[in-house]
């Protein structure tokens, strides 16, 4: 159980983001929930590549070769961060347009689907 505790905490962080997306009515809070889900998934991927008692996968001067963590998930997460940034930018642009049309961030008042 203790072995899998970080993964369980990751799941809890994911559920916090999901709660924000489902329950909250403010658009900005929904966007923050999206960001929390994004970061929890990134954290999960980095944790998968972790090995106990090992160092970051970069060699520096006068250093002996030691056990290193898996660098592949880290490279993948770097790409995922960029994609998350682009998604957040897109969602914020849509939220700004919605605010200019309806003058509110409350999703229960944004009802008219026409034009």
């Amino acid at each position, binding site marked *: 159980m203790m072995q899998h505790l970080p993964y369980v905490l990751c799941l809890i962080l994911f559920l916090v983001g999901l709660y924000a997306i489902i329950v909250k009515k403010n658009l900005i809070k929904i966007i923050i929930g999206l960001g929390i889900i994004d970061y929890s998934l990134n954290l999960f991927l980095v944790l998968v590549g972790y090995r106990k008692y090992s160092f970051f996968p970069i060699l520096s*001067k006068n250093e002996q070769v030691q056990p290193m963590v898996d660098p592949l998930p880290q490279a993948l997460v770097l790409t995922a961060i960029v994609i998350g940034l682009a998604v957040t*930018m897109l969602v914020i642009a849509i939220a700004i347009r919605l605010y200019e049309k309806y003058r509110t961030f409350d999703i229960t008042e944004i009802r008219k689907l026409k034009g």
Partner: protein
Amino acid sequence: MKQKNNNPGMTLIVKTVTRLTVGLIMLYGLYITFHGHLTPGGGFAGGVILALSFIHLILAFGRDFVIKKFSEKVAGIFESIGAFLFLTIAVSGFLAGYFFMNIYGKGTPFKLFSAGIILPCNLSIMLKVGFGLFSAFLVLILFTSTNSKE
């Protein structure tokens, strides 16, 4: 409210601190980029820090101050230069052999100018990411200004 309109941006304290720190933040971004092949970091992280220094300027001094000196068109030009530089480095490998070939030699390990084409690649990634983020932020601001005037 009238004073705010005459004097865009934040208070005098924020402006003074920004004037002192923006150069240091920019320099730190360049440092992260130039040491990308030796320490953690690289083109992406350095570019993000560079973009943050510009965003810091916008938040402290207001939109018009920055756009007067550095419009979104100039940012787009720098962004395109970054992409073009990366392609040029990749294609220049054909001079000696194949795509992305290291034509500058390997150098001695753990020196600043040692890793061949990694340093120029990091520089072009920094241009692309930094000015791309900056222009995305500018576009988000310009959206609101054009629509509220109508």
